[in-house]
């Protein structure tokens, strides 16, 4: 039964790739049916497993040293639901979005294959199998990112994504080999059983190598550069691959192998710090972006960093909880962005405005997604982010303190986006998208609202120290972010004071821990402003606010420069060195056969000298 879950979309892919040209407009229905079937089966499995906490193990012999083994427990059960559910919604949405594309059927074939590979990855109970699906997922993303291959940027982005994730896979592959050779099996259970007996150095080395794979796939520093470029693909692809599923594979892998990672504390620290570092860097960059999909892309990277922080703080459940809720609301945001792009034929924020009037459904659902991403209660992101911060507070305090600015940035850039796009004058001629596109938005919005209430892993039962502090710290910084965005992009400067006071009022009414501080800080600021208003010209305030913005932006610009010149620079340097040495070596191929013969003799002499010395 469980095996059917990935098999159905794989079957749909096979049929679509060969007979897609016959089905044409009807092609998506096959993909929808297959994914619907998978989703239904996942639900069934979930209902069977979740109440009892049972697990399902299936294993078929495959070849001499590896079996086809699958495993469902609560972790993979939830992942199945996420992948098949979000996948289904996105396929439905694509029917509207991709209408009229010349390779309509092909698109659904790739989507089905992608879902099949991702579901297989989630189910697999052995490293080799996981690696195979892992690579398949990467391959599908290559096809999907480059789907509009008429655009040179799309072709380049597809290749970049493929090469960067494969660079991470070097480590993953070697890690798998190392584990296999020290344990003698690919099966997770065997590895977990044997792991405590392994040398700590070996454990650290192999888990670090495995983490390399996650760095590539889950777009962590320094390999994340491919993800923003990958936005060249169709928006449903971005929603499916670069938000809800593929990029989460790395997080899932670490969570799945957590019994192994737990034995290597050094690796977990690395995971946590790389994660939070990525979260801050990507968040800063997102502030400067003016392309709606790029903002979402950096936001994804940043959120993946949060998940890594959760893992690094010894809490795979928190990481995966955030993975799931992020899957819902980020898919929602991408699809919403897709809906806007579909209406306006532009990605630029500058071309957007007043959408709340023109596209009410899209706008409202998008705002729901934004609130969830910013970690506002009672939306899903609030609960999951809170768990991560809680875990970090207890076990990785430095990570926790670093996470607060990242939380601030998250709400800041998201609301900056919202304030620019939704209120105000209507620009262009936007129109609401058809039902086939808005329906998935509504469903995802409901999930983004309600998902947080059922914590899939039971949550932390006991009262933990510092819980309230963490809660307020995260909410406070998130609000601060919204507030700053609002100051900078939301309102006219004239009405500054009035709005601030309302906001202040809300703060007080909610009785948050940081209230006193906030009242003192913001109230003092307001008082100062009102006093200054009387004395100085309005422009000075304007200037001050802008200065704050400039500092943030300047910092993130620096960050971006770092990104462009150092990270990309290293990559380009490597490419150049390879190309250059290729060019030099090529010159040895002179076409003159006696040169070749001379090289043989020199080669022999060198080998001889290496072996026997002079």
């Amino acid at each position, binding site marked *: 039964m469980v095996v059917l879950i990935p098999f159905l979309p794989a079957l749909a892919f096979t049929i679509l790739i060969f007979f897609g040209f016959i089905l044409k407009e009807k092609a998506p229905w096959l993909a929808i049916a297959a994914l619907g079937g998978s989703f239904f089966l996942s639900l069934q499995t979930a209902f069977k497993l979740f109440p009892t906490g049972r697990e399902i193990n299936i294993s078929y012999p495959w070849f001499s040293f590896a079996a086809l083994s699958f495993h469902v427990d609560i972790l993979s059960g939830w992942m199945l639901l996420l992948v098949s559910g979000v996948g289904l919604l996105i396929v439905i949405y694509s029917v509207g979005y991709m209408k009229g594309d010349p390779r309509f059927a092909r698109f659904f074939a790739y989507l089905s294959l992608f879902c099949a590979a991702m579901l297989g990855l989630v189910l697999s109970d052995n490293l080799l199998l996981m690696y*195979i699906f892992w690579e398949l997922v990467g*391959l599908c993303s290559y096809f999907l990112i*480059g789907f509009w291959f008429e655009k040179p940027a799309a*072709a380049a982005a597809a290749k970049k994504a493929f090469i960067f994730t494969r660079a991470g896979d070097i480590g993953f592959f*070697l890690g798998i080999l*190392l584990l296999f*050779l020290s344990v003698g099996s690919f099966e997770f259970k065997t590895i977990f059983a044997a792991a405590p007996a392994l040398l700590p150095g070996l454990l650290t080395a192999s888990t670090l190598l495995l983490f390399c794979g996650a760095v590539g796939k889950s777009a962590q520093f320094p390999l994340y550069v491919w993800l923003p470029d990958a936005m060249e693909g169709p928006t449903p692809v971005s929603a499916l691959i670069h938000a809800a599923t593929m990029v989460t594979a790395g997080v899932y892998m670490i969570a799945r192998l957590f019994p192994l990672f737990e034995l290597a504390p050094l690796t977990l620290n690395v995971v946590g710090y790389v994660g939070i570092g990525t979260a801050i860097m990507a968040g800063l960059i997102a502030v400067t972006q003016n392309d709606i999909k790029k903002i979402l892309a950096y936001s994804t990277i940043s959120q993946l960093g949060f998940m890594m922080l959760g893992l690094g703080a010894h809490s795979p459940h928190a990481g995966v909880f955030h993975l799931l809720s992020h899957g819902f609301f980020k898919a929602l945001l991408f699809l919403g962005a897709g809906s806007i792009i579909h209406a306006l034929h532009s990605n630029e924020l500058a071309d957007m405005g007043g959408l709340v009037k023109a596209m009410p459904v899209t706008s409202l659902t998008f705002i729901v997604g934004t609130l969830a991403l910013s970690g506002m209660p009672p939306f899903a992101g609030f609960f999951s982010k809170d768990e991560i911060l809680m875990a970090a507070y207890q076990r990785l305090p430095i990570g926790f303190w670093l996470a607060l600015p990242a939380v601030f940035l998250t709400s800041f850039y998201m609301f900056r986006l919202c304030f620019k796009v939704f209120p105000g004058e209507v620009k262009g001629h936007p129109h609401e998208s058809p039902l086939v596109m808005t329906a998935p938005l509504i469903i995802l919005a409901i999930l983004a609202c309600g998902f947080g209430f059922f914590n899939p892993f039971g949550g932390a039962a006991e009262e933990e120290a510092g819980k309230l502090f963490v809660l307020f710290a995260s909410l406070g910084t998130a609000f601060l972010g919204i507030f700053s965005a609002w100051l900078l992009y939301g309102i006219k400067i004239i009405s500054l004071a009035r709005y601030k006071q309302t906001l202040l009022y809300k703060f007080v009414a909610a009785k948050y821990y940081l209230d006193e501080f906030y009242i003192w800080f913001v109230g003092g600021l307001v008082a100062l402003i009102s006093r200054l208003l009387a004395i100085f010209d309005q422009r000075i305030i304007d200037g001050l606010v802008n200065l704050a913005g400039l500092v943030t932006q300047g910092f993130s610009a620096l960050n971006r420069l770092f990104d462009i010149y150092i990270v990309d620079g290293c990559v380009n340097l490597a490419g150049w060195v*390879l190309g250059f*040495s290729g060019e030099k070596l090529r010159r040895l*191929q002179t076409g003159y056969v006696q040169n070749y013969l001379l090289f043989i003799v020199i080669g022999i002499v060198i080998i001889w000298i290496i072996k026997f010395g002079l």
Partner: protein
Amino acid sequence: MSLFWPEGIVLLTACLVLVGDLFPRRVQPVPIALAGLGLSLLSLLVLRSGGSLAALAHNFYWFDLFSLFFKGLFLGIGLIIVMINIDYFKAQVKKNEGEFYFLFLISLLGLMIVVSSPNLLLIYLGIEIVGQSSYLLAGWQKNLRRSGEAAIKYFLFGAVASAIFLYGVSLFYGLTGSFDLSRLLVSPLLSPLYYAALIFMVLGFGFKIAMAPMQFWCPDVYEGAPIPITAYLSVGPKAAGFAVLLRFITLARADLIWLFALLAAVTMTWGNLVALRQKNIKRLLAYSSIAQAGYILIGLVSPQLGYGVVGFYLLAYALANLGIFAIVIYLSLILQSENIDDYAGFARRSPALAGALALFLFSLIGIPPLAGFVGKFLIFKAAVGSGFLWLALLGVINSVVSVYYYLNILRVIYFKPGDETAINLPAAIALAVMACLIGTIVFGLFPDLAGNFFLKI
């Protein structure tokens, strides 16, 4: 005597093809060759199920699973080469068809001899048969300058290589008193000269597999030779060279492993780096095949696993490479060009072939679940298992570098606009591509299919 059936049938077929050419009403050589190769393959399978293993002819000829596997591989390669050759020959070469197929079949026979013998004399004669016929076949397009140039370069390089090989053989004989490779097992002489002899012999085989520093002939000859012959050279003699090296390394003690590790590292890095800058598809594939030879050499550092690992990789590599060459032949027939840039728009002219090409390239890159992945996996596993972690690391890094130029081909055929008129495909080429495709996928999904039948992985 029945053990000689596969070789006997090939020899008979070759003679038939040659004689058939002499009759006033010419007998078509292609059907005879196909039938002969098929029959030979069949008799091989019968032999395999009979399971009789023996050493014959005064220990000159071994019938073991190892040689049966390679013979089967060669016969399969032969069938596919003949199929993809039909249309190319009609359009481009035209002349001396009977002699062409005669030489080709004899060359296959030479390969079969090389992998079956543990004796250096017979190995030498087999290599000479393969070599001499390949030199001739490379120069078969007499009206083309580059074909003649390929032949002379191949010939001169090969003659020097075999002289070096023979020099090693003579020293080996002087120190052990025998030409039998099994003498490697018991050789008491670990003297410098003995090592020198072994190194010379390894380099002599290395010529066939285009191993550094013997790889220089490879791009020039691949570019100049008729494409079906290039396809043949890239898989047939290469597989035979590896077979002999395998016999060599499994019989020798671990003394030479450092050499294979070193040469594997140089070979694959060289092939990949230079391939980055190539524009001509045959030349690119030449460097790619050098790089692939480097990967396969990695498998040799683990003698106890070597047989299965190298055998499987060769199978996967041969399937993918032959598939690619079949498509390249087809492209060169319709476009009259071997320049990768001229392939633009091909994906829209023939989506099925473009898809097949993509799969073959992915197999060469080592993407699961294709056969190439299993091959790479086995190779790197063997390397790490024998303590050559650095070599495995270098190999994996190399395979990432290779992604760049393999994907470049796909970029051109998929992403570049070009002529988009639909085109029809000759049945023989379609069949060959189909066979390679099925093999690539099936052996990727069920590696044991190859493993249980011939090899122990």
